[in-house]
């Protein structure tokens, strides 16, 4: 079996695939536990992280195995976002603050994530003439995304009043890891989007649209 880290330049080795599969599902379980646990339970983020780590133990290892059998590996973009949410949750607990509710991504980034997922889904089902998924094996997608991240960071660096956006750091980290390891599959689309992230993005956008519609409906009419 080939366990070397760089057996070829095209697809990731089994070793890298295993690393990101385990880390990805560990982060997902930890964040789901932290988010869904009772808000009055102060240590729920620590318990979430503990549960995620425990899944590496033999008696719980069936959980990530079953998740990966069905859903393969979370995208690296999901993984960097999950790591950020987990870190924010743990930090909020240490500082004694309540449940973390930072705005992880601006709505337009969620909208792009949802739209890209729709394009990739329709492409998978054969509804696009161009085979968009195949583009992910070439250099264009990672180079363009890294260029976008560089632009966002340049704007943040040049305007001291605005903080560097979290999404740019997370996306740069995800694509950087992809360039270095080709994980999770060797295809750049699998590194920057996955069906679970796409579903969540659709939910966020739908909720925002619903809130906006409700505000318009309930706004008092001018006399």
């Amino acid at each position, binding site marked *: *079996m*080939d366990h070397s880290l760089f057996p*070829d*330049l*095209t*697809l*990731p080795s*089994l070793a890298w*695939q295993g690393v990101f*599969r385990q880390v990805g599902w560990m982060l997902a379980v930890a964040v789901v536990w932290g988010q869904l646990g009772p808000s009055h339970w102060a240590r729920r983020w620590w318990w979430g992280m503990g549960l995620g780590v425990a899944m590496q133990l033999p008696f719980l290892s069936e959980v*990530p*195995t*079953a998740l*990966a*059998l*069905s*859903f*393969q590996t979370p995208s690296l973009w999901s993984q960097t976002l999950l790591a950020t949410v987990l870190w924010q949750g743990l930090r909020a607990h240490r500082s004694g603050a309540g449940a973390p509710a930072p705005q992880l991504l601006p709505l337009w980034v969620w909208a792009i994530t949802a739209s890209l997922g729709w394009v*990739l*889904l329709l*492409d*998978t*089902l*054969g509804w696009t*003439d161009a*085979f968009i*998924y*195949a583009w992910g*094996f*070439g*250099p264009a997608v*990672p*180079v363009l995304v*890294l*260029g976008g*991240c*560089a632009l966002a*960071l*340049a704007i*943040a*660096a*040049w*305007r*001291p*009043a605005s903080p*560097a956006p979290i999404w740019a*750091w997370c996306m*740069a980290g995800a*694509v*950087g890891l992809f*360039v*270095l390891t080709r994980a999770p*599959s*060797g*295809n750049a*689309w*699998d590194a920057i*989007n*996955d*069906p679970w992230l796409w579903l969540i993005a659709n939910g966020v956008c739908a909720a925002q649209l619903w809130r906006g519609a409700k505000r318009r409906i309930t706004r008092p009419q001018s006399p």
Partner: protein
Amino acid sequence: MPQPRTHLQRPWPWLGLLVCLALAAWEALRWQATASPAPTAALVAPAAHTVGKAWQMVDSGDLPQPASAPAAHASHLLTLPANSPYALAAFWFAGERESAPDVRIAMSLMDRQSLVWHTAQWVVDRHVMGAALGHGLRRLGNPVAWLDAQQRIHLFVVATGLGGWAASRVLHLRQAPHSTDLAALQLEVVRVLPLSWLWNTSHLVRNPPMPLADGGMVLPLHFELRVKYPLFAWFNDQGDFQGLRRISVRKDVLQPSLLALTSSHWLALMRTQSMRRRVAVVESFDAGAHWQSHEDLALPNPDAALAAFQFAPQSYALIHHPTQQGRQALVWHSSSDGKNWSQPMMVAQGPEGSEFSYPAMAWTQDSLWISYTHQRTHIRWQRWQATDQAR
């Protein structure tokens, strides 16, 4: 009152910017250095001397079925190199029934001297391969084999995730470095091929690879979650994945069988699920980059697998079912252009309700070897030779 920081006092965004630009440049330069050329087909001619001759079946029999496996299906034949003591390897899946949990991939070797098939051995077990992958496999299906430039056997196997065949993925295995005796073949996991964004589901392999001029190959594949469409992946001479292309925009065709008319002029003959129930064909003039659809061929297809084979440039064979319903017969046609086919020659026939299906072909020992599923209980083989009598 603290002074507002200037942009030069915020090093992290600048550092991030530089890292992003460096990674983007590295990615672009690396691809420039390693980008593989577009695939160019090898014009193989394993049996050029048979062109224009008649054929006769000289021998037939059943492949030795593994004990405790009442069902067998989807055989594939691999011609082995001339320095091997074996001339052919046959792979198929066997177990209690199709899609049963105990299905494994069996292999039988044909002795080069005696032309006798050896006892079948199990070469792929889903538990062993799932453990090596790290995420398990639920079911195994169609095996397809290929020899790389180092004469290593690569085996591509349908392996499902959670669900039926619609949750299929394609598992890439390779002969282990220490496994030099084919009679005790051991395969190692290379990876699951990355074929789709949707949890990498619903891609299958069935038909044999088409050889490329550089020693690599084109592996025909298809997608089958609600819609069915064909695609291919290509590999270099070491078996490294090089890319992915779609074969047709039609959504009712599957299991492409590829023929190279020239190095860049390719045909794909396909099983169809359309109402017309005829063999589908698409054509590419630029080595698979773009494909043109054609009217379905005049040959019927009952939504069942077919097999195409190249004896030499301008000499092709096709085995398929001659009816629009049922799999009770298999026939063989010849062609010089892949579109116009000769009158059929019977390969197998039985009463209505019987099944002879999933044909495969290979050339070795001056003979065409055909295998096919016989009643889903075992795999039957036939040996055909060209005769001097003109067709």
